[in-house]
């Protein structure tokens, strides 16, 4: 089959690889009908996350049709149309039982690697480095889905692929980011990052009762999408002083909550960016937390900073004094997708959310390398690319 493989820094290639086989009784094989490129894939693409091996198949947002099931799977049959969550979860461990699906104890065969870096190993993920399990990803024609009786969710016939696809990752991610803020009526929420996750965070913040959402980015086309499609008030951090603007826009109070939907490859004003890039170059810092620093400083007193952006390692110069003295709460985590799939599916069915608004490009799997290129460089007003079979 064809699959999009990581071949090195800034290099992905679509190659011919063997079809997946069932390896465990609770596996299923899914023929992928739609998949996407995620912003966190770019961290792998740009070589920021360790433990990648040449040839690894990427991709963790995918859906399709079940073509084979292991003996342990009784709730799915061949032909079912499913969307698959990106964390792989067993459903029976302590964390799964508490709804913390991305912390599953039992799905990372390379837990010993993750433990060394993180202290304890979270769940395995599709297509996201060997530290996260070394699973083959979904930017391919077929994928093996472990614990298929737990993760995959059936998609109703009336719903298109594009409506359902983002339940695999980014819509639940935006939702969890907003939910973790603990939004009260009247609250003002600031969102850093107008990529797909940021767009969904804006939408979900409104759904959860925010009175105003202010979105921050530097690409006018993304800010336009945030304003016109997601309904946010927008700020371009290259044009204005964000901390100042946020303060004055909120009558001197600052936003009640802040969402970091940017993550470890943040870009910033010259000096700060140069500092972080320099430190990365000599391996003294692995992640660039520019948006996070701003969010921590900008957040109003007593608020929550919800970190949806992906970070892998070490960050530098975090204004922790601001956290302590403003009594801030920091919430984060890889999305517990399984928790949100059904409720969000229902919202989509009721017309409360139309996730398709973030899609700007549709391509075939063969074009994936080009897709990575324009997505990474923000070319051609690219926000979200969907790869179709």
């Amino acid at each position: 089959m064809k699959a999009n493989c990581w071949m090195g820094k800034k290099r992905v290639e679509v190659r011919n690889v063997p079809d997946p086989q069932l390896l465990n009784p609770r596996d299923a094989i899914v023929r992928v009908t739609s998949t996407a490129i995620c912003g966190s894939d770019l961290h792998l693409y740009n070589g920021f996350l360790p433990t990648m091996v040449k040839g690894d198949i990427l991709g963790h947002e995918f859906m399709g049709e079940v073509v084979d099931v292991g003996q342990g799977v009784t709730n799915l049959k061949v032909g079912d149309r499913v969307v698959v969550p990106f964390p792989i979860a067993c459903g029976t461990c302590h964390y799964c039982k508490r709804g913390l699906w991305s912390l599953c104890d039992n799905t990372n065969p390379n837990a010993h690697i993750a433990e060394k870096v993180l202290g304890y190993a979270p769940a395995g993920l599709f297509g996201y480095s060997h530290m996260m399990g070394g699973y083959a990803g979904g930017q391919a024609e077929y994928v093996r889905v472990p614990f298929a009786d737990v993760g995959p969710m059936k998609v109703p016939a009336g719903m298109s692929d594009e409506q359902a696809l983002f339940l695999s990752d980014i819509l639940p991610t935006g939702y969890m980011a907003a939910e973790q803020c603990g939004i009260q009526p009247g609250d003002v929420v600031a969102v850093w990052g107008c990529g797909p996750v940021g767009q969904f965070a804006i939408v979900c913040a409104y759904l959860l009762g925010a009175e105003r959402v202010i979105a921050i980015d530097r690409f006018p086309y993304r800010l336009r999408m945030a304003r016109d499609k997601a309904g946010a008030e927008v700020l371009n951090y290259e044009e204005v002083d964000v901390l100042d603007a946020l303060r004055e826009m909120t009558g001197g109070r600052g936003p009640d909550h802040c969402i970091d939907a940017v993550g470890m490859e943040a870009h910033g004003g010259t000096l700060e960016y140069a500092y972080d890039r320099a430190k990365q170059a000599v391996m003294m810092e692995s992640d660039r937390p520019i948006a996070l620093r701003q969010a921590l400083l900008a957040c109003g007193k007593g608020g929550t900073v919800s970190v949806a952006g992906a970070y892998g390692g070490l960050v530098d110069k975090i204004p922790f004094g601001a956290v302590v003295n403003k009594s801030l709460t920091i919430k984060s985590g890889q999305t517990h997708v399984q928790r949100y799939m059904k409720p969000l599916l229902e919202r989509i069915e009721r017309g409360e959310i139309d996730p398709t608004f973030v899609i700007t490009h549709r391509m075939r799997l063969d074009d994936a390398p080009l897709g990575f290129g324009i997505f990474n460089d923000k070319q051609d007003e690219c926000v979200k690319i969907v790869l179709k079979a």
Partner: protein
Amino acid sequence: MNAPIDDVLERTREDEWGRQAAGRSGWAPVREPVYVWEEPGRRQEWQEQLARGSNPDRIAGGLAVFSMGLGLLQLAAPRQVAEWAGLPEERNMVNLLRAAGVREIASGLAIFAGATPGVWARILGDGMDLALLADALRDPRADRGRVATAAAVVAGTTLLDLFTADLLNKRNAMGPDAAMTPTRRVLGERGTYGSGFGGGFGNQSGGTHEGMGNTLFAEDKGIEIERSITVGLPPEQVYAYWHNFENLPRFMLHLEAVEVLDGTRSRWTAKAPLGMSVAWDAVITEDIPNQLIAWQSVEGADVENAGIVRFQPAPGDRGTEVHVQMRYSPPAGRLGSLVARLLGEEPHQQVRDDLRRFKMLLETGEIARSEGSLDNKERSAQPPRKNVDVPDYPATPADTTPADTTPVAEAPGQP
């Protein structure tokens, strides 16, 4: 029969950690609060103590700076130093002085790492310098007057070093809190705090473990491992699964097979590095249902080993904590284990991974496998080729106490 186990393994690492937390003097009751105005002598005592604590470090710091400065001088301008000290300016002397310079710098740095050993390093250096100078007095090319002066200076420094060492000794004896400086924490301070932890509890000078070495492993203390994991099932089920030793190879990847011979005896075969195989017979020495199983290998084993696995309820609804303590003596002793380590075997990690697989098996009925880690070898995360043997998934044994693998949490999308 139980003696080896009692001696070898009864004290767990957790006991050790607790003991070390108590400090050198052991557990003493928490002291009653002090009313400072009722005890005027205390303030005086504190002032003296604070001075005693910091003074030696300050002096040692000064000596360190002096050492490094002198060393730098000796290294950079040995001829000049020779001239000042009245020593013959020939090549041997120049090299000697340079070497002395390096030594001075090193002992200066050593003081920053640990005041006491650093100062003693200085004293040794002073001794060497005095010997050098004494020797020079007999040399006709030397300027005797200057040599004598230099010797007097060195002697004076030596006295200062000795005085400082004495102060440091007194300060160290006051207990771990006496020093105000952070430099105290490293190198050589183990002697003050009591037996170190790093050597593994088999090697402690604590005294009560003297008998350990003699019982099971005559000379070699072997490798000790203590690891634990929490499994979300009641102790009865976890104990039952483990007790059927023929299940163990399913998650202990180094085991090839276990054959239960009778009530207490079993035969074990395991893989060794370089494709070899080792075997031994083991007996259960203690068996408390749902609580613990202790075993020991029999005379003539390829790999002597003994251990205890305990099953205790985990807090709340978390299930069972499984604690494994074991000790084994690899073939070819320490050398063998070193070689094995170089070949990528790491027993502590292996036991941890074995326990993780045990948990997976019991909680989910299968062991997680990924394309990128099949056979525990790293390969790219792509599906394996068909017709190339995919390693056999270890089949769930018939008598597995069934983990209820119906997902307890609500699986999305279920009708």
